[in-house]
């Protein structure tokens, strides 16, 4: 009984810590988004609140809470309130299955697994929650009683559904490699530098593009497209309700970064894990692993921002075209390619490097073939018109 209660306390502390880290990262993402935007536009960025503007998130929060909380007439009041709540709730729930680290030794034979809960359908949990997340946007947009909000909400819904397909198919290739849906065992198969990015270059590209679309980030931020839809689904929102929407977007960014690190970049694995394990013991190595995972996730958050301040927004038909005619066939090809590499390399009894070479060669061949095909098509068309 004693052991269980220590474990329970430790787990509670861990969950609270992850909650705080997620919220802290999300809060500071708002600040770093502005700083990175400024740097990329040759400006210095926000620097008024505290040294280097480090208290900016605090000032933003105060501003958000102080603003008038307006609920438009003829809107559905309860759904209007429920929208941002659902967004925030689902954004925070995803991190439960992300393994932030290996087992921590608390002494007395208590091993704390640094993961909220290791369900055997971990990655499906992520997908389920992410697809629930669109309800927040949809309900909020619908309840606003505003045509622009509704348009934004509909866009969000159709965009998320379209890109979830390609995302799911790109995950299937990962599942083929690891043979499990559990995020923990996906990470464990990648230990020792066998990161999935080496075996799944195409799958990763598909996944990151879909992640951009799922998070409603530029270049796929059509649901909140200011130029066409004023503010999209959050046109009518003000005060902290708007803050919740914006905040959940940043939480989603961090969590999708963590998921990408888990699926493709070895999770909490880092070079020299074994060396540190032998030299300093288990706990130091595990905690460094937590740092490695969070570092990888933060790098992806930076990539999200980097892309946002580089690319313009897609047109809606381009978005749908890319999703349905580009990414879904590509991810199907990726599944076939993964199957083929697994089949052939197992027949050869080959080592891992054969698999890596085969995966990259498959992608290269695919690119060359489609380039040749498109050139042939182009020549044909030219002949037809000339």
């Amino acid at each position, binding site marked *: 009984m004693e052991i269980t209660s220590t474990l329970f306390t430790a787990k509670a502390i861990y969950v609270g810590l992850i909650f705080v880290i997620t919220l802290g990262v999300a809060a500071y993402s708002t600040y770093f988004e502005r700083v*990175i935007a400024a*740097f*990329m*536009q*040759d*400006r*210095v960025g926000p*620097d008024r609140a505290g040294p280097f503007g480090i208290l900016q998130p605090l000032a933003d929060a105060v501003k958000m809470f102080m603003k008038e909380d307006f609920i438009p007439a003829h809107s559905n009041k309860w759904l209007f309130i429920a929208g941002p709540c659902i967004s925030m709730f689902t954004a925070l729930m995803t991190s439960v299955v992300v393994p932030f680290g290996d087992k921590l030794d608390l002494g007395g034979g208590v091993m704390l697994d640094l993961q909220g809960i290791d369900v055997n359908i971990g990655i499906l949990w992520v997908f389920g929650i992410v697809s629930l997340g669109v309800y927040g946007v949809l309900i909020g947009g619908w309840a606003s009683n505003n045509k622009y909000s509704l348009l934004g909400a509909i866009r969000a819904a159709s965009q998320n559904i379209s890109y979830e397909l390609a995302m799911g198919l790109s995950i299937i290739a990962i599942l083929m490699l690891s043979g499990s849906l559990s995020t923990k065992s996906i990470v464990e198969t990648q230990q020792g530098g066998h990161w999935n990015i080496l075996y799944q270059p195409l799958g990763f*590209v598909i996944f990151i593009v879909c992640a951009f679309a799922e998070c409603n980030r530029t270049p796929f931020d059509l649901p909140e497209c200011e130029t066409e839809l004023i503010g999209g689904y959050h046109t009518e929102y003000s005060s902290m309700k708007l803050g919740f929407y914006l905040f959940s977007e940043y939480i989603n960014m961090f969590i999708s970064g963590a998921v990408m690190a888990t699926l493709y970049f070895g999770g909490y694995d880092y070079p020299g894990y074994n060396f540190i394990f032998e030299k300093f013991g288990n706990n130091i190595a595990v905690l460094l692993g937590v740092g490695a995972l969070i570092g990888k996730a933060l790098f992806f958050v930076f990539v999200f921002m*980097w*892309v946002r*301040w*580089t*690319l313009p927004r897609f047109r809606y038909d381009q978005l749908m075209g*890319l999703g349905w005619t580009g990414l879904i066939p590509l991810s199907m090809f990726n599944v076939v390619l993964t199957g083929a590499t697994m089949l052939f390399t197992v027949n050869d009894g080959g080592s891992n490097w054969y698999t890596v070479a085969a995966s990259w060669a498959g992608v290269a061949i695919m690119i060359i073939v*489609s*380039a040749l095909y*498109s*050139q042939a098509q*182009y020549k044909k*068309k030219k002949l037809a018109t000339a």
Partner: protein
Amino acid sequence: MKLSNKTKVLEQRELTFSERIYLPAILGGMGTTLKHFFSKKVTIRYPEEKRYLGPVFRGHHILKRDEEGAERCTACGLCAVACPAEAISMVADERKKGEEHLYREEKYASVYEINMLRCIFCGLCEEACPKQAIYLQHDKMVPVFEDRSEVIFGKDKLVEKMDNRYLRDGWK
């Protein structure tokens, strides 16, 4: 008929393969933004950092003293006449005995006021002054007013301080 030879015929060609898969262009663009990320910033943190505005910038007015510290202004009123905004007003007075170290000439301005809400910082007072008494400083701006009672600057704010002499760049 062509009016100029600048007409450029645009060909609406199909996108090439590398253009249609977006990724090469996206990576190129990300390279560009990353280059700017590390490049020198063109903006500054204004109130802490200030840019040099050049020796001819027209800022806060100053009534110069001569080398011995006597005021150069003789209250001739040419600056007030030259002023297009009618911002300058003054009261002339005669120098008493024993005030030679304070005022250079026999006549001086006992009151000299500039209404800073009227002033347009054209610098005509500086050009009109025959005694080289009034200048618009190149390195100091008029501070922000917080009340209407603060907008008229008297001699206390205008006359040059002896411990903080004004020297324009290029003067010896």
